[in-house]
């Protein structure tokens, strides 16, 4: 509070901004103004520093990194729009659906419209609600009706988004089942009753 922004000449301003910017670029956590004050032996008021920080943030407009004021202080961070590029440098191993999810999805894809009971009958194990929920949230399956049997179970089918995400123009683009039939041998091990996502 000892100085006002007007007191700084251009060279002083430039110097303070340079030091502040550098400190924020090398910081591994947000820096509150109280900490940033310690950079300088000649004390600057919080108002002066905040004004300079706003100016630095403004300097970074249009660049891939932005200076933001968080609850715990100021920090530089990459803009969200840079994410697709940056992710290419660190390709994370994409998560995989469990076998239970994949089999459920395959049954819905090939046998639609199908009820949960029918899926269970084919898989030989119960299908957890979490699996159906996950596929619904992904918008890959939805309810296209109800089967007119006791309980009126949901009839599940795949969606257009499912086809789009898998790069298919229609269900007929799926690997044909008729050809698949001859490729398999009975599984040796009993099926695990796993039903988690």
């Amino acid at each position, binding site marked *: 509070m000892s100085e006002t922004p007007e007191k700084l000449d251009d060279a002083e301003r430039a110097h303070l901004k340079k030091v502040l910017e550098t400190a924020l670029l090398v910081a591994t956590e947000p820096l509150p103004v109280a900490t940033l004050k310690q950079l300088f032996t000649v004390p600057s008021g919080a108002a002066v520093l905040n004004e300079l920080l706003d100016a630095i943030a403004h300097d970074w407009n249009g660049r891939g990194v932005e200076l933001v004021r968080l609850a715990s202080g100021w920090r530089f961070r990459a803009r969200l729009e840079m994410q697709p590029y940056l992710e290419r440098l660190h390709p994370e191993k994409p998560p995989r659906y469990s076998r239970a999810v994949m089999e459920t999805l*395959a049954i819905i894809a*090939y046998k639609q419209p199908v009820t949960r009971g029918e899926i269970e*009958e084919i898989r030989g194990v119960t299908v957890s609600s979490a699996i159906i929920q996950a596929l619904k949230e992904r918008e890959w399956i939805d309810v*296209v009706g109800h089967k007119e049997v006791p309980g009126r179970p949901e009839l599940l089918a795949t969606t257009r988004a499912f086809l789009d995400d898998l790069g298919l123009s229609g269900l007929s683009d799926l690997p044909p089942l008729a050809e698949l039939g001859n490729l*398999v041998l009975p599984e040796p091990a009993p099926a695990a009753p796993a039903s988690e996502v």
Partner: protein
Amino acid sequence: MNAIVDAGAIDPVAHLFGEPVTELPQDLYIPPDALRVLLESFEGPLDLLLYLIRRQNIDILDIPMAAVTAQYMQYVEAMQASRLELAAEYLLMAAMLIEIKSRLLLPRPVSSEEGDELDPRAELVRRLLEYEQIKLAAYELDRLPQAGRDFLLVAVLFEKEAVVRLPDVGPADLKSAWLAILARARRQQHHKVQLEALSVREQMSHILRLLAGGRYLPFQDLFDTTRGVPLLVVTFIAVLELVKEKHILVTQDEGYVPIYVRLAGAGTAREGSLVEQAA
């Protein structure tokens, strides 16, 4: 020499490190108190020997063995009094110095095939020079700016967790999932997994979607006439299949009036859970 990290305190002796030792006073006398500090700062017998030689401004190629050995022994004795555990390597050097000196006193043997005489000091000189070279190199290395000590690295945040990655699935994954089901089904013979034309199933889902919400649709509205005869046939089969599975009702009040199609449950007790008409 056991310390990995220096305390950072700068005592005068530390200036030895890498700096020309010849700048020090020429006299041989070192007060005993200073000697203790000095010994702490030596990196070993080579270091001490090098210091003695440089300090006396002796040409390293012409070491007066008697004088240097005598001085060296003085230091070693002082060291033994205070830091015995350091002394072993120094004593070894002392032995070497005395050996060199004694060999110099003896008649020189002809040692190599060419008849060259080997000076017993040659190996010592080589080691001293090599050590001095490394000592200087270490000093130069230490003067290079070090990350963390002399400069900091930029570390801007990249909030990767902002987007949740969903599993990727391809047609091949569906295929292998299906193969797994099939393999199990073969083992459990009572399951009959039927192979059907997919396009019929696709149309069945499509028709159910069109009828979702309990709408009545004219029969002909189920058919997309723009996509060829095969699709019309498949759609018709799908309608028959849906009727057979009691998913839909197809009604016609009398002959030659429009046929209407609706969901089997529609119009009776419909819950609100039916999906809305999606495009």
